[in-house]
């Protein structure tokens, strides 16, 4: 099993623990990764907003690189997944537009033929690897751990481009993986909502309010931690949780795990290998449970 790995900017910037845990987990699972080192940022929706054709061209460039590797693209970020899924849907549906975009790539000797498949680790594990195969690798079931899923907008909406219209179960994969790790998924209102990251610089009050609302919601439903496939959600829910606690006038202190970190714990990797010590909100409550 081989993928063209697109780690994305955040796992190589603000969330180095994601890059490390992703690589380690794939290696334990026997998933071969060929990293696309020269791929550019997806634009995270910001470039699409400025200039859709520019963002689609950058993504077509990444798709063309994956075609050269001859393997599906693997992402570890809900936002990368969403932006790429939308760009890919557009480029695949409209050959004329694709030709136009390829015109911008020609000078660099690249051409996107329209065959790229883009999958987040979340989807790849359930759809390609198989939950049973994953369970067979679990050496440390996380019994007693209650984990609240937090998906991130971009991997949920719009459902058409994300293939959720054909595969509605994609809205339940986080719960399935949490359960496969031996932990208990927590159901609460916030799981499909927005973490607030996109408006952090525009309206910090509303952004931090979202952090407080969803973390308290998860905690109120008994969660020991939250798990997210999106590093941008992680940045806000972890990085601004202390501010949110101040705003809400309540203690929160709920650790925010990247998806591969939770998987890694169940696969027997150590907290240090998964860099669980590199969080703003201490992850001790989780690592202690995992040790017991």
């Amino acid at each position, binding site marked *: 099993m081989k993928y063209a790995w697109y780690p994305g900017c955040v796992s190589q910037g603000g969330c180095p623990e994601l890059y490390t845990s992703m690589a380690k987990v794939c290696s334990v699972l026997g998933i071969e990764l060929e990293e696309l080192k020269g791929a550019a940022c997806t634009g995270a929706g910001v470039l699409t907003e400025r200039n859709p054709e520019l963002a689609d061209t950058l993504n077509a*460039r990444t798709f063309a690189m994956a075609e050269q590797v001859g393997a599906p693209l693997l992402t570890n970020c809900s936002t990368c997944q969403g932006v790429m899924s939308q760009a890919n849907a557009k480029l695949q549906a409209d050959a004329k537009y694709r030709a136009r975009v390829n015109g911008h790539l020609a000078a660099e000797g690249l051409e996107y033929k329209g065959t790229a498949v883009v999958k987040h680790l979340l989807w790849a594990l359930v759809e390609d690897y198989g939950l049973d195969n994953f369970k067979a690798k679990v050496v440390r079931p996380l019994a007693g751990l209650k984990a609240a899923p937090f998906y991130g907008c971009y991997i949920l909406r719009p459902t058409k481009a994300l293939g959720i219209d054909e595969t509605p179960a994609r809205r339940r994969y986080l719960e399935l993986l949490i359960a496969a790790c031996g932990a208990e998924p927590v159901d609460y209102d916030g799981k499909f909502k927005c973490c607030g990251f996109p408006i952090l*610089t525009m309206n910090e009050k509303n952004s931090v309010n979202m952090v407080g*609302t969803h973390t308290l919601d998860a905690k109120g439903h008994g969660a020991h931690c939250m798990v997210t496939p999106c590093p941008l959600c992680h940045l806000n829910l972890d990085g601004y949780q202390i501010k949110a606690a101040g705003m809400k006038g309540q203690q929160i202190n709920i650790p925010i795990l990247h998806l591969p970190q939770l998987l890694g714990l169940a696969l027997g990797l150590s907290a240090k290998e998964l860099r669980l010590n590199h969080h703003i909100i201490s992850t001790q409550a989780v690592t202690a449970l995992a040790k017991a």
Partner: protein
Amino acid sequence: MQVTYLVKRLNPERERSPRFEQFSLEVGEYDSVLDGLIKVREELDGSLALRCSCRAAICGSCAMRVNGEPRLMCKTRVRDVAEDGQVKVEPIGNLPVLKDLVVDMGPFWEKVRAVKPWLEPPPEKPEREYLAPNEAMREVVGALACVMCGACVSNCTVWEVDPNFLGPAALAKAHRFVADPRNSDNAERLKQLGEYTGIWDCTHCFYCVQACPKDVAPMERILALRREAIAHGYTNHNGVRHSDSFAQSVKQSGSLNEGRLAVESQGYLNLPALLGLLPVGLRALRAGKMPSPFHHKRPGAAHVKRIFEKVEGPRS
């Protein structure tokens, strides 16, 4: 087909918090969720309050949430949404519930009124009718399809935390007039829309796009308004600096530099805001996750830069 309707009910005269009531009923293969609700009201419980009129997705009065998703109930087939023979119906969110499935649309209309939902033609009158090129009206037609149902507002993630936000429907309506070539006061409108509660407060969560039964795609209209505001020179905003900094970072290095983005979005001269970033920055530093100020170029960065220049022109 035998289904179970789980209906959220509230009679504010008698109870404080809502409860779910269960109804078992037989519905036809092509019946809408609304058909089932009407059956409940006519055959099982006459006290059930709901709004509907046209039953043809035109009047916009039957927006509710089915299994959590806001939709028009007359346009949604039971068989398409039933999960294990069950259909959960709730009033749309973010608006006060009057009774059962009926909400107070007052705040919704207030916001539509706040964006000046009428055309302001130029003072000099043409000899005959105002002419508008076909091409320009294409932008407007999409938003004209809005039936003011409120489905887009139901799950809006910003409205939830800040009821002052103008919201998707009103902002889509605002775009309908800004995009109309016969309108004359765009500068004024865009200035107002760029303030707090307006276009820069949207989180880009796609809920409104997903919810709208008429493909108005309110979020796309909001993004179009942002581009329009920038084109009108309203660039002194964190949202604009954020977007510029983002583009520069990717253009120069192929990837995003979050540290630079946080600082440049506030503006280098905005000292109080920059100091406000410090505690969060320091916490990140202590956790060993502060993005390095020495942002390395990705291999292929020169290639990315050429693409920017080709598609965007030298401007950016």
